[in-house]
């Protein structure tokens, strides 16, 4: 019962959070130089009369505070508006692109978590051994390499020279696969971008798991587990890892907004048709409604993801109470 109450309370908290987000995002975007009219007209220019008419159409001629009021009411009514560039409803545009991003993020983060946690435990078993040093070197390197550079190198090596993987996109448009062949095709296209992002994210998870496991294996209950006659593997994976994962889960949750930023870079490099590229295009076009919608969507996603992480944390650690 307390779980449901806790969930309700947490969901209730998201309301003021979202209201704050709407206000901050709105004023930040409108404070940025340039507006969509400049983009629509392009370099050729147009008469002042046309510009004024366009601005009036978009409501840009009214005071910012009035624009904000109108926008806030529309959002509360569930209407995120229409893209000034394509004219399509913002929500449709976002939901169209969201699955691609979700797929990329979930794949790469799952990959990063599995590789990071496994290598972290291996590393922690014998601190300062040769294995540990190699893993440490790798983790620091992976953390230090910028995503866009790594992505281009991956494309160059595995896409161009070795020609193992496609360079761009999510599907082979010419073949027009369906069913299982389509799934395989997407997985094939997913490999490079997911790997690139995973390599980048592995470092943090790995370092954190390593230090956490080392800390936990010094605890009394690990000594007790060994004194029970359990094998080292059972001690490590049943008794140590679950305790060691608590801080790792926290950080994974905190890192979720960073994931989206990483996705913007990777999607641009790999031509992945996700939210990242949509955001970038919207920024370039000063497509206010789309940008606003994007940021609000990301906010909501981060809030919900953190809620999931908190629930996961409580599932791992019985000492955490829902209150």
């Amino acid at each position, binding site marked *: 019962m307390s779980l449901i109450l806790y969930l309700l309370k947490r969901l209730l908290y998201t309301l003021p959070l979202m209201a704050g987000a709407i206000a901050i995002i709105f004023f930040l975007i409108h404070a940025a130089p340039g507006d969509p009219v400049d983009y629509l007209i392009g370099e050729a220019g147009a008469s002042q009369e046309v510009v004024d008419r366009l601005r009036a159409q978009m409501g840009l001629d009214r005071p910012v505070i009035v624009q904000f009021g109108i926008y806030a009411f529309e959002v509360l009514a569930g209407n995120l508006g229409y893209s000034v560039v394509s004219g399509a409803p913002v929500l449709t545009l976002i939901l169209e692109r969201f699955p691609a991003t979700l797929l990329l993020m979930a794949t790469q983060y799952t990959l990063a978590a599995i590789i990071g946690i496994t290598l972290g435990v291996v590393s922690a078993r014998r601190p300062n051994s040769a294995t540990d040093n190699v893993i440490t070197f790798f983790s620091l390197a992976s953390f230090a390499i910028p995503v866009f550079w790594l992505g281009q190198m991956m494309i160059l090596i595995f896409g161009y020279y070795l020609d193992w993987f496609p360079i761009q996109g999510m599907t082979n448009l010419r073949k027009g696969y369906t069913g299982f062949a389509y799934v395989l095709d997407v997985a094939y296209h997913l490999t490079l971008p997911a790997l690139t992002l995973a390599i980048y994210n592995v470092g943090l998870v790995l370092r954190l798991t390593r230090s956490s496991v080392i800390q936990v294996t010094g605890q009394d209950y690990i000594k007790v587990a060994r004194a*029970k*006659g359990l094998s080292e593997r059972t001690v490590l994976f049943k008794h140590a890892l679950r305790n060691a994962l608590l801080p790792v889960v926290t950080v994974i949750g905190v890192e979720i907004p960073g994931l989206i930023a990483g996705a913007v870079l990777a999607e641009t490099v790999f031509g992945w048709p996700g939210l990242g590229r949509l955001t970038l295009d919207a920024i370039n076009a000063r497509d206010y409604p789309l940008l606003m919608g994007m940021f609000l969507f990301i906010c909501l996603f981060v809030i919900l993801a953190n809620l999931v992480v908190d629930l996961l944390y409580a599932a791992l650690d019985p000492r955490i109470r829902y209150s």
Partner: protein
Amino acid sequence: MTSLAIDIRGLRTEFHTHVGIVKSVRGVDMRIGAGEILGLVGESGSGKSVTAHSIMRLLPSIARIMDGAILFEGKDLVASTEKEMREIRGNRISMIFQEPMTSLNPVLRVGPQVAEVLRLHRGMARKEALAFAAELFSRVGIPDAARRLEAYPHEMSGGMRQRVMIAMALACSPKLIIADEPTTALDVTIQAQILELLRDLVANADAALLLITHDLGVVSETADRVAVMYAGQIVEMAPVERFFSTPLHPYSIGLMRSVPRLDEDEQGDRTLYAIGGTVPNLMNLPRGCAFQSRCAHVHERCRIEEPAMRPVADGHEVRCWLHDS
């Protein structure tokens, strides 16, 4: 003392640190009879716990058993493989640790933590092991045993947690239980309950108990025999009544004098006695007796030759030149 539970001979354990070799256990001979309670006393760093961990072969990686034999059920534990040790740990020899607050895994329920030992060593199925764990819980005086199986460690008090640890240690009816300061972290009333419980259970289960403590009061109430450890060696060993009536080693006498007494003469000097000086550095021990720098009776011979354990009476041995006859 007809049959022996464990027979330790000339055990030497060293820690190889980057600043030098620490000789933590320097030739310990110790026999514990079946069903006997041996109290191992000594201050911090005297090698009590290292001796215990050597028996379990659960030493940190920088520690090594250099010499000696630990004979247990026809095997020498020093020469046993890790796999053989895993079959002994928690099964034939079990251990109770000092800190009940941190000795249980905080994310697992206590029932399964006890049942784990039974499943591992007795091959019991989950349900069977849990049912047996409930029985053990009521045997160690945990009220409402069946329901408490479901509890997490943080939902129990220190005394209750130590009872869980005792249940875990008893689970496979071991031949030897090592209790490393089992009551140090508990308050005095709980301490008495736990000691009484340990004594009863050990008597019923016919297990031997190696009770490690720095508290002479605990020893006098619980143990059959006492061994005093100092700087990695046993310096005196005697039946408990004899030890408390006629301690022979100057260190034992000093220990006894430093216990506050309620029945002391109120008029006299009420300052609590303390043994002067400090424990010698185990990396760089003096020639001769390890206690020489703190001993009031030190003489020429103590600085040249190290005394050996000598029997002085039935079951009473001491490592001191004063009693070398």
